């Protein structure tokens, strides 16, 4: 595949994830642009499709909350960080084994918290989400590039 079209695709991916992450921080962004408040109810519904968004599990910035839980915030911002490093060309491909291993801390956190071993920790959820999100995005990026390459060949 031509390097140029690969780069455009990666810019598109980064832009899409950036927009998605901006949406997560809508309550904070609205502070600067009050006219955007009208979109808040729609965005809340949009993110409720992909996250339970239980009020006590949302990440707080002063009085304002993210629209998804701390774990999902970690996953999406982890993807954003990876998309940025991919744009710079500074990344290594991730194997299926590494992807599965990276999901273990998150699932352990879900399991142990659900079984009552400890109370919900925003930071732990965010960190385990970041790990899976960042490595998961590299894994998906690799698959997408392979498909584009295949389509280009045909």
């Amino acid at each position, binding site marked *: 595949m031509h390097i140029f079209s690969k780069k455009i695709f990666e810019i598109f991916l980064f832009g899409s994830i950036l927009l998605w992450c901006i949406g997560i921080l809508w309550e904070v962004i609205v502070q600067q642009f009050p006219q955007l*408040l009208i979109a808040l109810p729609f965005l809340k519904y949009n993110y409720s499709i992909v996250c*339970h968004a239980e009020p006590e599990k949302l990440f707080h910035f002063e009085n304002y909350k993210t629209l998804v839980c701390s774990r999902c915030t970690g996953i999406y911002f982890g993807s954003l960080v990876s998309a940025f490093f991919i744009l710079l060309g500074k990344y290594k491909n991730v194997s299926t084994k590494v992807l599965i291993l990276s999901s273990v801390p998150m699932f352990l956190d879900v399991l142990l918290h659900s079984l009552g071993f400890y109370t919900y920790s925003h930071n732990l959820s965010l960190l385990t989400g970041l790990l899976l999100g960042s490595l998961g995005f590299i894994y998906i990026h690799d698959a997408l590039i392979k498909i584009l390459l295949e389509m280009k060949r045909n």
Partner: protein
Amino acid sequence: MKKYLPVLVTGFAAGVLHIVPIVKGLTCCLVVPVAAYFAIVLYQKSNNNFEQIELKKGATLGLLTGLVAAIFGSFFDIAITLITKNNDILNSFNQLTETIDMFPFPQETKDEVLNLIQAVATSIRETGFSLLYSASIFVNNMIVNPIFGLIGGLVGAKIINSKNSKLD
């Protein structure tokens, strides 16, 4: 038709699970990607072909599963709202009002948003239907579910292929 049966079955299941409150809360964003994975597994079984699956095929199956889940999920959500005259919007109405009230903006700006939510809530309470709510559900589902389906299809295809390569 046989070709699309796995997508229809798993997409339908994901659409149903989308509106079950407890399942929705527990599985978050995993419903559609997992449905996409099962669409690939069913596709391989129906074709009796357990060799490596092309990533493009996995992505297509995932995307279609997401689309089917979006259509059924939206339909069930709208239909249940119509029958029960109740839904998540009404349940979270007070919380949303508190959130909007918290912003240090002129009352006029806040009223504009509150009136909009109030109109939707009133319409659902009285008739069980709100055009704005229904359109919003449909558009959101049609954007989000296919993307998550695509991700599920890609990851599913890669996992199945890596399993197969270990067996070879």
